[in-house]
């Protein structure tokens, strides 16, 4: 039984009609807060590649122009940060991870996304396929700003947003789950916002 916080009434209750869109413990913001563990990397698109790797070798690699030549999808989705803000109806331009993974043969069960700056995060393959995940390079019709992960970031909106790795440069295919950066520091291996899987053991 939680003690009642005398005199606390709450000011940020979820707006009527949106209850089903905001996971427990989250509040809606119209800002787009920035969170990262170190300086923002700035990789020029001329030097940017995206690779799918396995066992230390690249199975497939795309340059920026090759990636941009793939079918573009317009994605409108809600995002949920483990620090408790949710942002509704965010609008992205992106390539589906399905489109990328279709170009390699694999039996992997997990991916470890890797980024400029050394950031990594782990996601089951079944959560980055089936139209659930994207490589996003556009936000609201413009280029994705560097502080929000540009030139390109992962977008896996059904999981807490730390899984949507900023400055992403590839996916390592794995036959087992392996903790990424925040997962090593006690954050949840899976990160389902609807189950409030914020930290290990949640």
């Amino acid at each position, binding site marked *: 039984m*939680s*003690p*009642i*916080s*005398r*005199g*606390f*009434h*709450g*000011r*940020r*209750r979820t707006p009527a009609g949106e209850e089903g869109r905001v996971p427990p*413990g989250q*509040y809606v*913001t119209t*800002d787009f*807060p*920035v*969170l*990262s*563990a*170190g*300086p*923002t*990397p700035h990789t020029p698109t001329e030097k940017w590649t995206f690779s799918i790797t396995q066992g230390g070798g690249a199975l497939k690699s795309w340059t920026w122009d090759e990636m941009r030549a793939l079918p573009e999808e317009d994605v409108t989705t809600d995002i949920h940060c483990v*620090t*408790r*803000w949710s942002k509704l109806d965010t609008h992205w331009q992106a390539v589906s991870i399905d489109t990328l993974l279709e170009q390699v043969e694999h039996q992997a069960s997990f991916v470890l996304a890797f980024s400029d*700056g*050394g*950031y*990594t995060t782990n996601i089951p393959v079944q959560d980055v396929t089936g139209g659930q995940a994207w490589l996003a390079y556009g936000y609201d019709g413009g280029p994705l700003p560097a*502080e929000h992960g540009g030139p390109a970031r992962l977008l896996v909106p059904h999981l807490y947003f730390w899984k949507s790795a900023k400055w992403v440069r590839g996916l390592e295919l794995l036959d087992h789950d392996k*903790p990424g*950066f925040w997962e*090593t*520091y*006690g954050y949840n291996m899976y990160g389902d916002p609807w189950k409030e899987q914020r*930290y*290990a*053991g*949640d």
Partner: protein
Amino acid sequence: MEGTAVRGRLTWQTATVAQIIPETPRTSTIVFDVPEWAGHRAGQHLDVRLTADDGYRAERSYSIASAPGEPVAITVERLEDGEVSPYLTEELRAGDEIELRGPIGGYFVWDPATDNGPLLLAAGGSGVVPLRSILRNRERSGSAVMARLLYSSRSLADVIYRQEFERPGSGLDVIYTLTRSQPEGWRGHAGRVDDALLAEVAWPTGQEPLAFVCGPTSFVEGVAQGLVGLGYPPGRVKTERFGATGGRQ
């Protein structure tokens, strides 16, 4: 960006407010009596949960202000449009019960036993809170590591922990910059931290410094980028952000 595993379930527990210490007109330090605290490292944070009488709950994260080994404390800045910070700074009283869990986070931490190199701590506003934990840890552990604090604040009245930082013999070098107003005769810096001030204050890279930067996004982006520009390896620049609606509210 490698780390050691920090695992184990973090459970909510009921803490009692032991003391509330006003720091500035907008900030207060809340010291808790936590029955089962596993201990924390300097720079970590914790989650606070409030429950209204109809069951509505709100949770927020706050940086821990106290050093490892000291009673758990947070310093909270009142945000006018905030949901939790006005409650914590205005309603909460000593003796009240409140739920919390932690410690959380393992990257933005300083450990005197393993972290070498002079410390460059850069704070924007209430971003000074986890850096204060680092400084207290440094002092309590008898660390010989040199430390410099670059602290950007709106005005002198908004400087948190000023007496503590200016205590003689702390061995701490504090460089203030006041962004909105400066008292008459102010001899410190004025305005936002720029590359020139950073170049003046930052330890030379040859000394293998370790930087911790905490504040609002624009502050953190500017300082972190500036340090990288001075040759700091990105892995030696650890950042944490306080946004109006961002990480630690």
